[in-house]
């Protein structure tokens, strides 16, 4: 059965249905969008049940010739890493649709267009993680910029068009660098036994180390822009500030993961030697991202920008975990990607509700929400705790794994990164204190608490954060084989624990 194609076709079919609906009936449009995303989520879960956890080969493989002249295939397949990310994307989609029920009304265009864009984007989110043909991956990687661009520019607030353009130009620039590398790979594959974009075949190419280094950079810069790594991050705070909360969830929660996903799937597997060469530099950038993102988050006055900077810090952790090249850090990074999706979603959605009720996104405008809107305040508090990786919540497991895994090989980096956790406490507790506690700021007395729709939307997110905090093993069982496979495949081994060194 063509599970993956089915997953990609369903949202598109939903968007076609929405196209045919009358423009005036906004409620029906939303219901169709919600139903579609729920069905996609159900199908994904059904697929995940059938996934063989210990099998490190690609599963649910599909392959059809697409452009035979260039050796391009429509080829899909998933391993544990891709499965986890697809699962995250399809769970977040209905949450976003439900949570941002009224977000589309402030837009330039109709509500209909908003949901069409969201559904088209969902198709691409699934495709980008499932593609096993480099060309197909690139096509989706670039094409998915367009719906996001229109979502930010058309439905955002403030300087939305400038933010949308900045986002697009940054991403396109990175994408074009990657295109140059892809062309080089394609030409080399032609010289070594026939043009192909098949990932497995490409990873066996022989190339000089200089070539490998250049091509690696082409890919890595593109991914580092996506998963914003310092110093290529500057588009993110602007985009997050302007986008609607729902768009931000998809942007930071899912799209930026394409960057870290690409680092594992493409950088490590295609250029293992170059990855080793650049690891020291990348780890330094990752540590800088962790600290820099955290410090800037502390200094933000705007709630949305604050969340964006916390994400830069978190992406630093993920990148560090990926390039530390131990199976623990690798598993941790993958789990981190999943968890970050949900804790950021919780922060953005609850933050978004606070902002739309108050009509301002400045942190100082809130205050005393704990008394006025207790449910909303508690949700924000929980989301914040998840972001600072409080033990018992899901992010703690992944952050711990990343740090432990990194420590075994790069202790100094791990130690410096640990300061990120301390700073995280600051950047979360300061807004929690300012916004939720203290005297009620004038103007806030009559804010309404979360309604039923909002409660239903946020409930699964919070549930996942809490449950996976206590019991992460279902997910880790899927992730661990894939992560160890990555490490083993590229000739890395975990450092042997040196138990005797203390005896002397």
């Amino acid at each position, binding site marked *: 059965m063509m599970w993956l194609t089915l997953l990609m076709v369903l949202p598109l079919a939903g968007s076609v249905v929405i196209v045919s609906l009358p423009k005036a009936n906004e409620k029906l449009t939303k219901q169709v969008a919600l139903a579609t995303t729920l069905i996609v989520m159900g199908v994904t879960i059904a697929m995940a049940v059938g996934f063989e956890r210990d099998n490190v080969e690609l599963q649910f493989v599909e392959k059809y010739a697409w*452009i035979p*002249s260039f050796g391009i295939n429509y080829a899909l397949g998933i391993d544990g890493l891709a499965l986890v990310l697809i699962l995250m994307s399809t769970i977040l989609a209905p949450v976003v649709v439900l949570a941002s029920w009224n977000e589309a009304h402030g837009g330039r265009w109709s509500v209909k267009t908003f949901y069409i864009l969201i559904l088209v984007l969902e198709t691409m989110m699934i495709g980008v993680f499932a593609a096993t043909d480099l060309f197909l991956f690139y*096509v989706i990687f670039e*094409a998915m910029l*367009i719906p996001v661009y229109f979502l930010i*520019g058309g439905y955002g607030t403030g300087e939305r068009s400038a933010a949308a353009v900045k986002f697009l130009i940054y991403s396109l620039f990175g994408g074009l660098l990657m295109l140059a590398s892809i062309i*080089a790979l*394609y030409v080399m594959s032609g010289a070594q036994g026939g043009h192909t974009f098949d990932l497995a075949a490409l990873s066996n190419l022989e190339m000089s180390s200089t070539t490998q280094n250049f091509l690696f950079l082409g890919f890595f810069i593109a991914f580092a822009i996506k998963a914003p790594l310092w110093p290529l991050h500057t588009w993110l705070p602007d985009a997050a500030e302007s986008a609607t909360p729902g768009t931000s969830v998809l942007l930071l929660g899912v799209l930026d993961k394409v960057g870290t996903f690409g680092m594992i799937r493409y950088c490590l597997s295609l250029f293992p030697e170059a990855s080793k060469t650049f690891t020291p530099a990348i780890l330094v950038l990752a540590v800088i991202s962790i600290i820099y993102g955290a410090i800037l988050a502390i200094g933000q006055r705007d709630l949305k920008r604050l969340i964006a900077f916390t994400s830069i810090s978190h992406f630093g952790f993920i990148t560090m975990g990926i390039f530390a090249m131990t199976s623990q850090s690798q598993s941790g990074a993958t789990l981190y990607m999943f968890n970050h999706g949900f804790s950021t979603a919780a922060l953005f959605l609850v933050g978004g509700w606070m902002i739309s009720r108050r009509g301002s996104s400045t942190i100082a405008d809130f205050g005393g929400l704990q008394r006025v809107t207790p449910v909303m305040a508690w949700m924000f508090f929980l989301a914040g705790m998840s972001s600072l990786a409080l033990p018992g919540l899901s992010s703690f497991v992944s952050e711990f794994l990343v740090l432990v895994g990194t420590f075994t090989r790069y202790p100094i980096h791990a130690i410096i990164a640990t300061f990120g956790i301390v700073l995280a406490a600051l950047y979360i507790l300061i807004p929690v204190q300012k916004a939720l506690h203290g005297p009620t700021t004038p103007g806030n007395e009559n804010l309404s608490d979360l309604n039923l729709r909002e409660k239903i939307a946020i409930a699964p997110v919070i549930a996942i954060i809490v449950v996976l905090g206590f019991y992460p093993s279902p997910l880790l069982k899927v992730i661990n084989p894939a992560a160890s496979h990555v490490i083993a495949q590229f000739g890395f081994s975990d450092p042997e624990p040196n138990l005797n060194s203390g005896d002397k």
Partner: protein
Amino acid sequence: MTFTAPALNYTLLSPMLILLGGALIGVLVEAFVSKALRPMVQLSITIGTLVLSLAQVWRIRNEESTTAAMGSVVIDGPAILLQASILIISIISVFLIADTDQFTALAAALPGSDEERHAVQTGNQVTEVYPLTLFAISGMMLFPVSSDLITLFVALEMLSLPLYLMAGLSRRRRLASQEAALKYFLLGAFSSAFFLLGMAYLYGYSGSVTFAGIRESVVGGSGNDVLLLIGIAFVSIGLLFKVGAVPFHAWSPDVYQGAPTPVTGFMAAATKVAAFGAMLRIYYTVFANAEWSWSPLLSAIAIITMLFGSLVAIAQRDVKRMLAYSSIAHAGFLLAGVIALNKAGLEASIFYLFAYGVATVGAFAVVTLVRDSGGEVTDLNRWKGLGKRSPWVAATFAGFLLAFAGIPLTSGFIGKFSIFSAAYENGAKGVVIAGVLASAVAAFFYIRVIVLMFFTDPIQDGTSIEIPSILTRTAISSSIVLTILLGIYPAPLLTMITNFSTFIR
């Protein structure tokens, strides 16, 4: 002295002969048919001729011959593909040219004169643009299939002379239009002179004007290399002028802006196919063995052209000028296909030419729709908020822009990918890197227009979207459908190109 009648293979020449016949009938119609019937009759004849010619190209698609016209014309796979591309692009363009509102009622009258006013008042619209178009198309068809220098030059003049005239036919801003025509003519004549001079040197080098003869000398390497170099340089200047490569591009922004928009679209798309077709044939067959002498210089020109076109386009405030500079940048990308000098390069170039041509005609078709009381509005500032006024038109234009920018799922991306990979295969890494950087710069100004259309509020200044006529609508929708289709599923066309594209010598 006895006279030998030339042996012509009329079947193989028929696509061109049909066009010339249609053009001559058009001239007669202009003279003898009453003015009420003329536009209708002319349009039917033109479209009919083009379709007939296309059918004829399809019929001879599997023929190959170097002796169709005593060795002056060569028919082979690439010839068929290029001729078919020119015809398809021309058919779409003629749909736009049919909008007589764009053309002056009486080109012979001075701007603002009594005669002109009289012609307008009595509705005495001349329709000479149709036969002119057909003459130009027949020249374009001959250009890439010529296989000696004399025929090549005749074809060059055949396609150029009608275009010079057509550039001056605009109904509004007639002075600018005439200035554009004159500029085009003078610079074109200048480049023709270079071309002729180059021909003379090549003749001096090889003692032959046929491609086969010159090729033999190049392969044999017996002649005087200085003559060859000068010959290549001057012939290249003539060709580079036609495709608008830097530093021979100066005419194109003014001509693009001044000419009536349907003519601009036709010129930008079809001339490029013809000129690059001829260029590919000459470089791939005649000069191939002298690659060392032209490749470095052509690479430099390609790089400068891409970067210059993209960078200067950023500063443009007029949509037609912006598209002109964008077409300069695309000429640079296409030169990468010439430099590639391999089968992949030929295939990529033909695909690119067709895809770009279709998108260009479509984009200019959209430009004809944005008007105020005084005619077309080409000032970009007044395109603000177009997406609000007319979402479909704006979305279509955005589609063409994304294709120009080479975003995946449009034909532009497949074209760019294939042409760059072909150039890379030949070791032209510098060209590929410059191309990628230029694409990033180009993306910026294409996106800026999208921002203008969608993310800014409209200003009330009387700019409106004309309801497109059925012909314009056909032109726009067929272009956008082709552009998207070739981006999502290009396999059939690419396979066809692969099967066809080998030059015979």
